[in-house]
């Protein structure tokens, strides 16, 4: 059952990255859209994201619950040493979640809209940045349980080149996912080409940020290259991602939306797979090379079993309902945009 729980944890993180990532990205795209086109982008976003908006963010709750029920030592270590980035991320989540809804449900449309939009766009950037920083920090080896000063224990645990680079990479990935997603949500050719342009831009940004991640890892002696390329699974995943990248650019020119979505999702899957395969089940790597492992530091068997069953039973309810939700609103979305 432990493996079932670990699988769910991984999938919840992947889905959060894919679905909530596209949400975050929508805000980033809006931030990068010229004033002239912003209102159009905003409308597209509501139609495309509105109905599944709240559901997308549930994956984070699932992730947290799995962590504190199944792997309490890991949850507690992250909570202590990554307190500050977690808090900033939470403020981002508060700001985004509320601003998005307030903007839509304010009965009067006036200059308040501008305030909601600014908050929404800014927090759409900050939240994934810090999500990435948290993910990067957990494997960066900078968390030091023996640190003596405040700065060593609670600041340098996350403020380092590698973590920040992972943060920026996450932002780029989110923007990329959103642009790809939005291409399929508009029927107007001009709008479409605008999102295609954005998708290309974000893709280039992701590749650049990705290279910075590798450079930062090299500079800080993090064996990222070894994790990625030191084993067949990693190499195959990276090769698959590269091939899909080429295909993706081809279909970007063609404007085939379904295939584009599948390819973009596939890329994220491969990147997350390559990045985590080698060091899993060691989910937190501490200073000095010791680690917290999903297997060695999991909770007691009975707790894991109960959690596993709760997740299995939960998905019987959640997945069909979620699928039907996405399906019913997808069906009408493009038609509605005409």
């Amino acid at each position, binding site marked *: 059952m432990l493996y079932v729980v670990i699988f769910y944890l991984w999938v919840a993180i992947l889905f959060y990255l894919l679905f909530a990532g596209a949400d975050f990205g929508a805000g980033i795209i809006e931030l990068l859209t010229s004033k002239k086109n912003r209102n159009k982008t905003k409308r597209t976003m509501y139609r495309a994201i*509105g*109905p*599944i*908006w*709240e*559901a997308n*963010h*549930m994956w984070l*709750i699932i992730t*947290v*619950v*799995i962590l*504190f*029920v*199944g792997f*309490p030592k890991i*949850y*507690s270590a*992250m*909570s*202590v040493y990554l*307190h500050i980035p*977690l*808090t900033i991320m*939470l*403020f981002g*989540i*508060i700001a*985004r*979640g*509320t601003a*998005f*809804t*307030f903007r*839509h*449900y*304010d*009965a*009067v449309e006036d200059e308040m809209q501008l305030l909601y939009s600014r908050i929404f766009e800014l927090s759409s950037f900050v939240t994934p940045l810090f999500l990435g920083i948290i993910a990067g920090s957990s494997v960066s080896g900078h968390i030091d349980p023996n640190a003596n000063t*405040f700065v060593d*224990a609670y600041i340098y645990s996350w403020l380092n080149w590698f973590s920040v680079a992972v943060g920026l990479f996450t932002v780029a990935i989110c923007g990329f996912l959103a642009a790809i997603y939005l291409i399929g949500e508009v029927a107007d050719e001009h709008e479409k080409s605008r999102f295609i342009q954005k998708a290309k831009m974000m893709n280039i940004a992701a590749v650049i940020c990705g290279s910075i991640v590798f450079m930062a890892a090299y500079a800080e002696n993090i064996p990222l290259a070894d994790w990625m390329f030191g084993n067949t699974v990693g190499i195959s995943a990276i090769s698959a991602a590269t091939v899909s990248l080429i295909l993706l650019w081809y279909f970007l020119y063609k404007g085939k939306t379904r295939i584009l979505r599948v390819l973009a999702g596939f890329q994220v899957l491969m990147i997350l797979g390559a990045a985590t395969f080698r060091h899993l089940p060691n989910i937190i790597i501490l200073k000095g090379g010791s680690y917290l492992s999903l297997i060695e530091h999991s*909770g*007691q068997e*009975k*707790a*894991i079993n*109960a*959690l596993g069953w*709760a*997740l299995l*039973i*939960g998905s019987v*309810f*959640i997945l069909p*309902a*979620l699928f039907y*939700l996405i399906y*019913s*609103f997808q069906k*009408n979305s493009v038609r509605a945009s005409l």
Partner: protein
Amino acid sequence: MDDFIAARSQMALSLGFHIIFSCIGMVMPFFMATSHYLWLRTKNPVYINITKAWSKGVAIFFATGAVSGTVLSFELGLLWPKFMEHAGPIFGMPFSLEGTAFFIEAIALGFFLYGWNRFHPWFHWFTGIVVGVSGLASGILVVSANGWMNSPSGFDYLNGQYLNIDPIKALFNDAWFSQALHMSIAAFVATGFAVAGIHAYMILRKRDVRFHLTAFKIAVVYASIAAILQPLSGDHSAKDVAHRQPAKLAAMEAHFKTGKRVPLIIGGLPDAQNEKVDYAIEIPGGLSFMINGDWNSEIKGLDQFAEQDRPPVLITHIAFQIMVGLGMFMMLLGIFYLFVVWKKKRWIEQKWLLWLFTAATPMGFIAVEAGWTVTEVGRQPWIIYGIMRTADAVTPMPGIAYSFYLYTAVYISLSVIVTFLLYRQIKMVGKLYGTSDANT
């Protein structure tokens, strides 16, 4: 500010903020479903207008409740890492089930809010019901987790180790039922009176009277029935607390010395130093009777507990008095309203009655906050009753005071914005729903 006090204040603030939004998220769907049902049955456009107006409020409150709930799931660890490290696996069952319930709620809300004219009308109505039922289930599960902190079970505690974990037993701890029942009814009382009060005020202002009167009538029935049931559940809770957490009951009642024929103390200012209560009304033997059904029975006082194991008496007692006082007032108002509906229908539009309801707008929520103060402060100094002290659970990170200031600023601004949005929604009712065109 001391880090420990800051952590406790931040937790209290976050919970106190979240509880308002979750109550509304739990209860409003039932009000909407009622109005929605009446629309589908009667095709009277006032009902669909009310449903739509309420659903906008719900969207605003749900979004705020969802983010403040997400924050809480992290804050448990950010503020109390030692607690979560040990408690997480034991009382995790309600949280993992709650994850599912909350997820379903979010999905159903997507269907409901965006599903007008897209689905079969009764399927659409049903998704609204799902929002309410899963919201209620979420609430019950989270309260069960809190119940476990009051009444820990499902593990053996030996030499500082938590052994033989049984998550199912922890889920159905001794406190879960009485707490969940009391809280669920409280959510209906609080939301019901708040909604009824706002609509009553709008009727008094003579704005869109037909709309507000219809909305008032739906909310007030829920509110009145819940307010009448609540004291019964409260009585059950008090007996339960006396049995499980005698120190908490003693603090609630400011009962210092163990003895027989213990009076019920109404009001008053407890003086913990001199172990007495000033300015209180006493009903001789009242507490003994309430708890054991016997005017002469013995009730444990705070003197049975070592100094360091006693909860703060002043806060617990006053919060309890506020909760009970407001609860009683709302119960009387509820009984009176139902009587009015039954006997003197024309009284509904009497000014003084509407003013009474307007005055009661915040009462339910004040009672909810006071009630949670009783539960939480009354459990102190324990975070897991009798097992782990709150002071031992707090994060080692210094400077929590700054975090508390930040959270305070954020939650105050959010409250201001939500109030502002609600004000605008209500102000615009005439414009948005003024015509009888149901499809606008």
